[in-house]
């Protein structure tokens, strides 16, 4: 809190005006529209709209497609988070042992952050292309017939790998920072007491790293749920047979391709509630735990 302030009354509003105008026009108004439309149903020509109460939400709850999308999103988010964070932690622990080569390895590992999700999708799609890709060629040698166009498991594997790959660098940077904040004195004391590297890792590093881990857990779930639209759209487009149709993709598809405004708006509202819940978790718990 500042003790010294300026007294103008009009100036702060002028300074805030651009931000508030954009917030109202492009954030709050559309969000309110989404909430309004989620209670309405439009006829096929978009002329008549009727108030239908919660029936759009009810329809979602009874729709096997939407329940499938929920399940797909959960599986996808968990797999991306675990794969990306696990791999990043392994690399961060390895880099933590280095003295001179830390910066070289860091440079070689951080750049995928800058690759757009859609481009990451295209790259992995090419690698796994059933006819000319590199991976199916090797998988064929061990007797696995890879085809992400027809196999649900293969399609999910592809989008998980592409999404996790892009997120490794982010997790890596935060794990490295977290590891550096673990006091060396604690590990030295444990070493003197006879604890080996594995024991020290699980009994000292892992607990002291938990604020970083928890923070990254929330960030990665948010990433997997909302920022991977590009990966999905550039590779599987939700297919085959809805196997990779995550919630964000379904909102877009039902709204723009299916033209089902009421249902799409109801899905938007549900997604907003999920984001609000995740933001609250992040602010309440992460802030507290980071301070310890």
């Amino acid at each position: 809190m500042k003790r010294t302030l300026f007294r103008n009354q009009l100036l702060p509003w002028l300074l805030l005006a651009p931000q508030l105008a954009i917030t109202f026009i492009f954030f709050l108004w559309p969000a309110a529209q989404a909430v309004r439309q989620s209670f309405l149903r439009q006829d096929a020509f978009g002329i008549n709209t009727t108030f239908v109460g919660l029936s759009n939400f009810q329809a979602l709850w009874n729709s096997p497609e939407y329940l499938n999308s929920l399940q797909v999103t959960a599986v996808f988010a968990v797999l991306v988070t675990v794969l990306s964070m696990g791999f990043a932690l392994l690399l961060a622990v390895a880099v933590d042992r280095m003295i001179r080569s830390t910066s070289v390895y860091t440079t070689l590992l951080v750049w995928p952050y800058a690759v757009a999700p859609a481009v990451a999708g295209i790259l992995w799609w090419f690698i796994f292309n059933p006819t000319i890709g590199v991976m199916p060629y090797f998988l064929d040698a061990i007797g696995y017939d890879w085809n992400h166009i027809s196999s649900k498991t293969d399609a999910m594997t592809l989008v998980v790998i592409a999404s996790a790959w892009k997120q490794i660098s982010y997790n890596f940077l935060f794990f490295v920072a977290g590891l550096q904040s673990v006091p060396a004195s604690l590990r030295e004391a444990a070493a003197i007491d006879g604890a080996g590297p594995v024991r020290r890792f699980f009994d000292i590093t892992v607990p002291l790293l938990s604020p970083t881990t928890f923070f990254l857990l929330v960030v990665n779930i948010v990433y997997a749920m909302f920022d991977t639209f590009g990966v999905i759209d550039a590779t599987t487009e939700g297919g085959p047979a809805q196997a990779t149709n995550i919630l964000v993709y379904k909102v877009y598809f039902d709204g723009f391709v299916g033209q089902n405004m009421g249902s799409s708006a109801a899905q938007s509202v549900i997604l907003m509630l999920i984001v609000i819940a995740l933001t609250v978790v992040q602010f309440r718990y992460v802030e507290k735990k980071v301070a310890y």
Partner: protein
Amino acid sequence: MIENRPGLNLLAHLTLMLGVAIVALPVWVAFVASTHTATDFMSGTIPLWPGPHLIENYSQMLGAGVSTSGTPPVGTMMLNSLIMALLIACGKIAISITSAFAIVYFRFPLRNMAFWCIFITMMLPVEVRIVPTFQVVADLGMLNSYAGLSIPLIASATATFLFRQVFLTIPDELTEAARIDGAGPMKFFRDILLPLSRTNIAALFVILFIYGWNQYLWPLLITTSSDYYTIVAGIKRMADAVDGLPQWHLVMATAMLAMLPPVAVVIGMQRLFVKGLVETEK
């Protein structure tokens, strides 16, 4: 390092090298593919080393593009991406820094409400409210324009919080001194706050430039005229168009060009990048 264990050090190096190789694999494959001709993929064996057609493929994409895909030359799309990324990054910084200044250095009615309005944007990512936002932009006649590409993405709670945090650490004595010397609020803002937040602005710029360059869904929806295609959104249109006729070498050349500017920014300004990343997520 607690104790010297050569075996573990070797293992750590091997892990890291394997990690670097896995992380680099897709880009290596894309690069190799972008240096061959279409017929090299037909033979059934996948080339693993670069071919001789590097300059030919890249200059074709930059200058002419693939006419059958309906996308403009990659050079045009990169320029559009650059304009969009710069508008988003500069716009976000400009409106956030003035908002933070207003919230920290003034007391006025409804100050808390203004703060919450900005905070709430954090909970409304564009993917979530995509259909109504598109309708607003269409109603305002902003489809197929640089304004439509950038302005709806400019509001930023994270940037505002970052600057608020920075301003709160600036000692009150500076403000008092400025006021005694007769400086008004805008002079104080320009001559004291802006110079003191220079590195924060630079770090934020790196993050926001990457954010802007990598936008996908938004440009895909609001650009129907190929004059405004951005490269990240255009690449999908190109991949779709060449599906029948596999011109993978050209798609991969485009992918390489699409990631070159943001990757160069991350590697070239690594220190600022890490600073920006850590600060914006606090």
